[in-house]
């Protein structure tokens, strides 16, 4: 593929574009405030890929190299926008990397150490949709507030449905590392939805 790009092969390029434009855009979208700016970032990325393909030495996968360019463009736009990171309103931030606050579980001196002290309550599913519009906005906000690498993994795996192996290549992660980031991100988002459900009194 790199050779085809160097030769200016439009069909090969379009195949690459069709396959990866979506996921590049999804990743870029997490760094900026609008769909349109994300679009700009990705088009700049494609341009940089076409112009810079001679510099690709094959030491990493082409896809990894492509994503490294994307992230560079995304960081640059993010810095230019000078977005102030929104203060996290998630109480789940208070307990670091635990999937769920340790307070929710019984302590060593209690009857069943490690078992639920405050168990999760089943969520009522409103009608057919999994989430109301309001809950969805809450989830979007929580996703946007995740640490960068967790957000990228969740956006690619769970929003866009990209396969695990490909996400590892895109982001330069080992399978274990990817699973850890996936786990932490999903745990935070579950907690965010739980908080929403509790507050909404559903």
């Amino acid at each position, binding site marked *: 593929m790199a050779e085809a*790009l*160097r*030769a*200016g*092969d*439009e069909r090969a*390029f*379009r195949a690459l*574009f*069709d396959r990866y*434009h*979506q996921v590049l*855009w999804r990743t870029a979208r997490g760094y900026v405030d609008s*769909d*349109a700016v*994300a*679009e700009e970032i990705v*088009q700049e990325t*494609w*341009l940089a890929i*076409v*112009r810079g*393909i001679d510099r690709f030495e094959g030491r990493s996968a082409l896809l990894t190299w492509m994503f490294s360019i994307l992230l560079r463009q995304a960081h640059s736009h993010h810095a230019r926008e000078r977005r102030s990171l929104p203060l996290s309103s998630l109480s789940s931030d208070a307990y670091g990397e*635990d*999937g*769920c606050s340790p307070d929710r*579980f019984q302590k060593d001196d209690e009857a*069943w*150490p*490690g*078992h*639920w002290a405050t*168990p*999760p*309550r*089943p*969520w009522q*599913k409103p009608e057919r*949709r*999994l*989430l109301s519009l309001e809950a*969805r906005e809450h*989830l*979007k906000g929580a*996703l946007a507030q995740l640490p960068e690498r967790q957000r990228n993994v*969740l956006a690619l795996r*769970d*929003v*866009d*449905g990209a396969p*695990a192996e490909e996400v590892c290549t895109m982001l330069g992660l080992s399978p274990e590392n990817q*699973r850890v980031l*996936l*786990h932490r991100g*999903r*745990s935070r*988002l*579950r907690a965010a*939805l*739980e908080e929403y459900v509790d507050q909404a009194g559903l």
Partner: protein
Amino acid sequence: MHPDEVTCRQFIELITDYFEDALEPPTLDRVEEHLVMCDWCVTYLEQMQATIAALGELRTEPTHREPEPEVLSALASRGRDRA
């Protein structure tokens, strides 16, 4: 409680590996045994599934699905340089 049983607190940390088919016996067996016995952890698992499904509902697509003209002309000039 047997020392090699999975507690609820352990379960929630194993759940992603469970979904990813990254658990092997005996841990996998312990997790499945725990789910048979613990309705609360089943609830947690369902919440996790709902969260993942909800994320999938956020999927939207970029408006433009075509490379910009500038990209295509940069590509074309590569072809010309090669020729």
